[in-house]
């Protein structure tokens, strides 16, 4: 049966790449970019992207009533959150002088800091921008299938997520210190990087998502 994936559109930034990448990996699927709650809840799977500042993102999500839709969707179907989508699912972010987020995971979003250095004392630039290696923590997770451990994915962010429950961590990265770049719980997979911009590894992950039954 033809699968339908809804890409949640709350009016922030570029959803073209995410939808095109999904069409590319699943040519038979129906990809809809939408803010309509019925369409989102009727889809077989949901992608929750996000770029930009957290206050505006969370503000728009709430204004459009999409917080309720996300809360419902994550109970039911394969759900992939990307970048600010992932961050907005935490309890709180320190971006924009502190923003209460959707609180779907007990966790915080913190700033990397401007005095970040590597082990040799070299200054690390913020935003963390470019291709970094992701070490797979829940290595048997279906979304990691066919992707080498420590493959590089494309990141662009100045804030990072930390969750209270360590069993949620599905991928880690190193940038001045280790941080959580992927979390997974049941039918939810959330990534800090941009799979839609991460060439082979990213497309593989999206392909895995399109075939995923939501079991981990």
């Amino acid at each position, binding site marked *: 049966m033809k699968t339908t994936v809804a890409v949640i559109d709350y009016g922030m930034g570029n959803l*073209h*790449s995410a939808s095109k990448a999904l069409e590319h990996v699943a040519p038979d699927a129906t990809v809809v970019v939408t803010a309509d709650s019925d369409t989102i809840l009727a889809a077989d799977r949901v992608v929750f992207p996000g770029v930009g500042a957290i206050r505006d993102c969370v503000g728009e999500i709430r204004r459009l009533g999409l917080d309720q839709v996300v809360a419902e969707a994550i109970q039911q179907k394969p759900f992939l959150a990307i970048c600010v989508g992932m961050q907005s699912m935490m309890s709180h972010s320190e971006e924009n002088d502190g923003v209460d987020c959707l609180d779907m995971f007990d966790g915080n979003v913190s700033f990397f800091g401007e005095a970040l250095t590597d082990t040799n004392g070299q200054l690390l*630039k913020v*935003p963390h*921008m*470019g*291709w970094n290696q992701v070490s797979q923590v829940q290595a048997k997770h279906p979304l990691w299938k066919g992707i080498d451990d420590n493959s590089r994915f494309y990141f*662009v962010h100045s804030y990072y997520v930390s969750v209270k429950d360590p069993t949620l961590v599905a991928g880690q990265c190193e940038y001045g210190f280790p941080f959580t770049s992927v979390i997974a719980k049941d039918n939810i997979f959330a990534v800090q990087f941009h799979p839609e911009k991460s*060439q082979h590894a990213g497309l593989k992950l999206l392909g895995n998502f399109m075939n995923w039954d939501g079991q981990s």
Partner: protein
Amino acid sequence: MGLAKRIIPCLDVDNGRVVKGVQFVDIRDAGDPVEIARRYDEQGADEITFLDITATHEGRATTVKTVEKMASEVFIPLTVGGGIRELEDIRRMLNAGADKIAINSAAVFNPEFVGEAAAKFGSQCIVVAIDAKCVSAEGEVPRWEIFTHGGRKPTGIDAVEWAKKMVAYGAGEILLTSMDRDGTKNGFDLDVTSAISESVHVPIIASGGVGNLQHLADGVTKGKADAVLAASIFHFGEYTVQEAKQFMAGQGIEMRL
């Protein structure tokens, strides 16, 4: 283990066609930006920069279509620059599939524009392009100023101070081109690159002057750049992006291979 340095091939596009010549031996149409971008993607480019030099209004519509097509086929980050003057220009390019937008002259005429753009779309997608030229005499402490109009018009603005100001306004990345070196094949201006890279906390892309692979490596090791941009050495098939990456990795630079 950690973040890789990036290689960014740059395409100058006029009215939907790549100019400045691209000569791959086995390419069907050397002027098609989408086909060329796909080629660089296959070679392992970390990003693509698309510099629109189209002058006409009609040509701009072509640019949007080209960006759309490129973003539908190439799944690495895409920066679009050239003629970005208003928030609407940025929105149009982001909607077409660009990931980052490079602002050049408009920032000089109105620095607030960078602030507005960053507030609206997020710093992560705002690249400020700086064209710098050395203005100090030999023997003096080196000093660079920013120039507009393709390096013809001096502004009297100090390049290092300008970079700091642009970051304060919300630039998420700086694309630094040395007007002294652009087109010379003598290598990046490493002094201005490191001076700016060490003055700001955002990533710096070095541009202008690459003639061989050692120049790319020097941009990172001596110029302290986070990414290196080049056009002709890749366009003329002298080196593939993959060869460049292997070379840089051989000098101990962290690369995505």
